[in-house]
């Protein structure tokens, strides 16, 4: 929750000052866009006089971005789209569903909430064939189908959510100049990354900047670390069962992943400021060390939104947080995304889902900012920067995509005990004890 908010705050800062109120951002027919998909959709769909209401978590400049895309849906179909964003979307959508006045489409930042709503019968399954479409057209398609498939009120599984707009977490940020001057190469595997870490220490530097501080949400950056490392040491099934607590939190495999994180974070030589500074350094503050002279650190693992917090004019780049070459687990990618679900059925709502299946719907947002997609047919040439393009490549190259596990766990765990447990861990508690405490908390809420 907190993360997605911060991410959107970042996007907001990036895009503030973009033009408002323009009807169509990009002139149809121009540029690298797949306009033929737009024309085909426009021809096949006529919704004149109909209204489509959409509620989502984006407000401010972010809200303008959504609306710039929705404008094309309006232009193509003749329908009127009313988008309203809310900062406390999670509460608002529950209230409006209870009050029996839901929008046609709701955009959920967390699959857990959507699953809840599906079980209450508040969501309508997506049109037949959508699951097949996602499976075939999205990179790691099955992962996306699974994330959007829930049990309905009758207990039958169906695809309820369509993922559109994805964030990437498995990234390591660095300063190309610092790497260049020190003669370091981008590590291609976890083994190389660990060797590089030791190499930097041997050269008299400090390899990592890690900061878990985030006010009341202190600790969340560590949960991403642990999730990423679990995906790199265990098959994705283990991750899935861990997220649903079929595998307990204090299972040796999970504890090992926490200790793997400790390998980096609890070593005074590896972390800028020493291990004791990890828990209190603000996560927004910590990447600044990459860009100081002499560098306080050389690498920083964080999601795609973090450049917003880099010092002005910082020259930065990133690489994929690599997987172990020695373990045959493919290239897993950790991320998050927003899930679009039908909360009140109408022809326009169904048509909107097919709009999301067109490449143009993705490209229109790609060409602006803050948008990645696993949709292979969307043309990456429309990305305005190389950085966005290579991030999207990581997403497309993923053999496994997994959603941020802490967002899938119950709030008390994923946005509570897990956070504080990781703070305890980096301040000296043993991984075993921390994991057991989190599991006890989980037991107590079941």
């Amino acid at each position, binding site marked *: 929750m907190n993360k997605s908010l911060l991410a959107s705050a970042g996007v907001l800062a990036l895009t503030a000052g973009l033009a408002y109120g323009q009807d169509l951002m990009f002139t149809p027919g121009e540029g690298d866009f797949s306009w033929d998909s737009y024309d085909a959709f426009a021809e096949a769909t006529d919704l004149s006089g109909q209204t489509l209401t959409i509620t989502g978590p984006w407000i401010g400049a972010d809200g303008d971005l959504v609306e710039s895309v929705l404008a094309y849906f309006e232009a193509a179909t003749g329908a009127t789209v009313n988008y309203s964003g809310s900062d406390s979307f999670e509460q608002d959508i529950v209230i409006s569903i209870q009050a029996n006045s839901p929008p046609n489409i709701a955009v959920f930042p967390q699959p857990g909430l959507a699953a809840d709503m599906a079980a209450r019968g508040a969501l309508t399954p997506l049109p037949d064939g959508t699951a097949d479409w996602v499976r075939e057209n999205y990179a790691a398609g099955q992962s996306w189908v699974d994330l959007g498939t829930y049990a309905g009120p009758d207990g039958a599984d169906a695809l309820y959510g369509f993922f559109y707009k994805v964030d990437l977490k498995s990234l390591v940020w660095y300063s190309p100049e610092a790497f260049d001057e020190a003669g370091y190469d981008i590590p291609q595997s976890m083994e190389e990354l660990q060797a590089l870490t030791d190499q930097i220490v041997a050269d008299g530097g400090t390899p990592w900047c890690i900061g878990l501080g985030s006010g009341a949400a202190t*600790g969340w950056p560590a949960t991403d670390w642990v999730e990423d490392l679990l995906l790199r040491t265990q098959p994705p099934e283990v991750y899935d069962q861990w997220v649903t607590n079929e595998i307990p939190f204090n299972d040796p495999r999970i504890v090992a992943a926490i200790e793997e994180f400790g390998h980096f974070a609890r070593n005074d030589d590896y972390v800028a400021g020493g291990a004791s500074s990890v*828990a209190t350094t603000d996560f927004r503050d910590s990447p600044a060390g990459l860009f100081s002279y002499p560098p306080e650190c050389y690498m920083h693992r964080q999601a795609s939104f973090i450049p917003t917090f880099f010092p002005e004019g910082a020259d930065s780049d990133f690489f994929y947080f690599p997987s172990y070459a020695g373990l045959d687990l493919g290239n897993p990618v950790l991320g998050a995304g927003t899930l679009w679900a039908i909360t009140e059925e109408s022809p326009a709502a169904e048509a909107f889902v097919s709009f999301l299946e067109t490449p143009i719907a993705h490209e229109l947002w790609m060409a602006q900012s803050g948008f990645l997609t696993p949709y292979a047919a969307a043309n990456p040439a429309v990305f305005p920067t190389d950085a966005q393009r290579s991030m999207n490549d990581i997403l497309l190259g993923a053999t496994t995509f997994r959603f941020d596990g802490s967002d899938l766990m119950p709030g008390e765990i994923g946005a509570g005990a897990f956070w*504080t447990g990781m703070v305890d861990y980096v*301040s000296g508690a043993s991984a075993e004890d921390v994991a057991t*405490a989190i599991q006890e908390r989980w037991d*107590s*809420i079941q």
Partner: protein
Amino acid sequence: MSPLFQGIITILVGVFGCVGYFYAANLLLDKVIFPARGPNIGRNINRATAVRPWLFLLPAILALSVYLVYPVVGSFWRSLFNRSGEEFIGMDNYGALFADDVFRQALFNNALWALVVPAAATFFGLLVAQLTDRLKWGNIAKSLIFMPMAISFVGASLIWKFVYAGDPDIGIINAVRDGLGLDPMDPIQVPFWNNFFLMAILIWIQTGFAMVILSAALRGIPEETVEAAIIDGANPFQLFFKIKVPQIMGTIVVVWTTITILVLKVFDIVYTMTGGNFGTQILPSYMMTLMFRDDGRATAVAVVIMVVVLPVMIWNIRQAQKEMR
């Protein structure tokens, strides 16, 4: 300038709506329902007099019952149900709380806060009040010490985060340590003692409050008692502890309880400084982590806070009733 205009309109509507009620209600009572004229003038006046207190009290009673009494009762009732609010589980939430290490720690820390903060704030307040009593620049000193009262808890937390910062180029505490040749440390992470560093913030805020009240109380001490003590040869310390303090004991207790009540409500400082990590959790901020997730348990924490406050509340009511007589 439309927001400004809207703001002014809403302000006017809100304020005049309220004034209008009292005025119209009184008018109605005196002129229409029980007019002070006609054949039943005497009975009408008596009736109006009997009704009027309730007229005056009605908005207050309504607001108090809806905004305070109802939540207290409602919270207690809610705390007997499970997290979804559908199943009655009796005292299970309380059982689960007391089995939780974090909750027990929060309870212990809260007890520490409730003891240390009022004591320290009252002590410093009394100290400053006495010392500045005869000082030429006493009023300026008092104003400056009183100033933190105007700062929000969030603002105060920010100010103190800066003081406690681990970088000796930012935090003054670590700069001093650096100057003395000690390694920088993070005050917020020192087990157990970090609680006291957080309490310092609230003491910093509340000392001014204690000082103002105690300073006025000191001035209210009859001169004769002080002069008599001086003639008897009391030194300034004896004068203060043996003569002055006993006379203002009542005020000291009032200040003490007022700050205690406040301590049990404040969550912002812990929430913004540590988020309850590093063993600094207290009940109100612990409750915030549960709120909107498991309302059953969150309200159970609130009820525990109420129970902790109960002795202070009873004592307060006793005092008030004593005054009445």
